[in-house]
């Protein structure tokens, strides 16, 4: 028997969610699109005017924007594979039978880096990595390594941001992959282990297909997170030294909140949003076909 649900009931259930989404998501987005078509500087409101696609043209031809994009892409290209490799290793260790108490404790401790506020992570890094007084250099000194200028050197600062990102997000990847491993039917896994003694073979042919949805989710979330990575590098290096850690979100904040050019910052944000959607669709198209 098929139950016919009245339209009013459907509307009553869906309405609040749709209205909330429209209010906090769609309306600001439409406003940002509208503002991106204007010269709109908070300190020069008298000069506000419609400029069509000029802001988009400025962004797309601005080398500073593309350099920030390049830095962001490099951060993603280095940190996410490392996070996946380390996260998968941790997940596989936690997936093994035995040591229940310790595994529970490890699972709980994995949440801590993720639960720490981004800005606090950046501030901690700034203090811990201080060349003269930081605890990291002090510990390096114990094993005879000279103090490293982490924050004042462009390359070192970039590496420091990568390491901090890996520290904060590897646990997230590990927990998602651990959840993915729990979807592998135990009987299939046991049968595979009877067939081969190679853990790699089991991983490659049995576990990995079940992990594809988790990996796609990780890629989508980490892509979005990396594109909007702001708090940690801002409090840690403020985009410096020079422009060494000026990632795309740091650049947009600078244009919008320090130069007050809201129109240009809105155009940069819309381009970034389009890029995020494109990449998300790409991941789903490329990786999900294996699952289907």
């Amino acid at each position: 028997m098929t139950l016919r649900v009245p339209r009013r009931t459907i509307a009553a259930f869906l309405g609040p969610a749709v209205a909330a989404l429209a209010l906090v998501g769609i309306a600001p987005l439409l406003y940002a699109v509208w503002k991106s078509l204007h010269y709109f500087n908070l300190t020069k409101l008298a000069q506000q005017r419609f400029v069509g696609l000029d802001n988009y043209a400025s962004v797309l031809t601005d080398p500073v924007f593309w350099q920030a994009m390049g830095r962001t892409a490099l951060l993603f290209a280095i940190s996410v594979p490392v996070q996946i490799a380390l996260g998968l290793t941790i997940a596989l260790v936690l997936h093994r039978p035995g040591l229940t108490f310790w595994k529970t404790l490890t699972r709980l401790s994995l949440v801590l880096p993720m639960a720490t506020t981004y800005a606090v992570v950046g501030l901690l890094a700034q203090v811990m990595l201080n060349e003269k007084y930081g605890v990291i250099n002090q510990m390096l000194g114990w094993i005879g390594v000279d103090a490293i200028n982490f924050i004042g050197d462009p390359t070192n600062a970039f590496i420091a941001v990568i390491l901090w990102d890996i520290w904060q997000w590897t646990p997230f990847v590990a927990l998602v992959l651990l959840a993915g491993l729990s979807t592998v039917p135990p009987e299939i896994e046991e049968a595979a282990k009877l067939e081969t003694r190679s853990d790699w073979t089991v991983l490659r042919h049995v576990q990995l297909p079940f992990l594809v949805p988790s990996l796609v989710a990780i890629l989508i979330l980490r892509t979005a997170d990396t594109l909007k990575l702001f708090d940690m590098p801002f409090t840690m290096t403020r985009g410096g030294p020079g422009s060494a850690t000026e990632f795309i979100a740091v650049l947009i904040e600078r244009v919008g909140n320090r130069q007050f050019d809201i129109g240009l910052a809105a155009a940069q944000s819309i381009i970034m949003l389009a890029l995020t959607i494109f990449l998300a669709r790409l991941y789903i198209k490329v990786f999900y076909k294996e699952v289907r």
Partner: protein
Amino acid sequence: MKLKMHVSALALASAATVGAAGTVQAWTLEEAAKPYAGTELEVLFLDRPGYNAAIKMLPEFEAATGIKVNYTTVPYENALGEQVRDFVAGGDLDIALIDLVWIGNFAENGWLVPSETFINDAALADPDLDMADFFPLILDAFGSWNGVNYGLPFDNYSGLLFYNKCMLEAAGFTAPPATWDDVMNTYGPALTKDGKFAYALQSKRNETQSADSFARFLWPFGGSFLNAEFKSNLMSAESQAGLKFRQDLMKFMPEGIVAYDHAETVNAFAQGDVAMITEWSAFYSTVVSPETSKVADCVAIAPEPTGPAGRKPALGGFSLAVATQADDAEKAAGWLFIQWVTSKAKSGQYLEMGGVPGRQSAYADPALAETYKFIPALVESWKDGVPEFRPRFAEWPAITEIVQEWGTKMMLGEVSIEEGSKMIGEKMEAVLAEAGYYDGKKPLAQ
């Protein structure tokens, strides 16, 4: 000249008000504030000694007037954005906190009420206001724009040379360096050894880079950001000499100096790792307190060294002004607070509690220099300063970002001094062209 004439006019207006009020009845803060009792004021403060001093003084003002001052403490880096957004949105702020480089921006947007509005109101103007008692340089630079005064100097700084006399004496020096040339050729080599450095120049990529680092080496060498036609002056021989000097001086600074903000620089000095720093007078209490400084007993203060063009030390500071968005009662109450906290009568207390008053009379007693070692150097610096140490027009927020980016790249060696200067000049002129300075739409005012 125009600004000086204006200050004189304000002083006269103030004096006239005194006369007018004097014939009627004696003015008191309590009487003036009676109509505004219960009014609440909103203002942003920074976490710096001058604001902490004002916070300690607030209960006295509130008890005398019934006016409540609600302050929100924000980091310096957020203060401009917070205020701009509040003023654009018609928010709650009744008093504007104005860094000297924000005055043009705030005034041109019509966010500030001119001081004359209140000075000409006998009910609100303290007969002892005495505008001429403020150091003319800081009254002009911190609170005035285009010939009109808006704000009264509140949190006042000058760049000073803080030096560790123990380290200097150990190296055979009996006095601090008088010139930048001395720093480079005599003090630098002698004091940079055994893991210690002669000098640290705060150069982090924020306002510190443009104000404390970049501009500091333009003016004493005869350079400037702009010439008289508002075109870039950074490629001039004088500006280039100053910027090259800064680059050469880095060999006597700690590695990674581009990551040093005020905190790191003051800390390096306070830990005894650096012999000399050029910092704001506001950090005096930090380096002489044994709680925050290992070298408290060795600290001595001098004016900044001179360059080929003179001293022209770094100039910075904040004024307080009444915001136009406040209602009439808040405006009047706001003025009463600003007038009180910057008054001659309260300047001694403000100094005692850690603030740096902008009143000449506050430093008249020679005995004060015994307690506050920075006073002679500060007073001398305020006589040698230039109001346009950093341009104060509305376009500065955009220009400072350019200077911060390319100034840091110069120091890192990512671009040469010439390339960086050329790039800043081109970008700076593009901002000024867009603003209308080159087609006569805006006056060439700094």
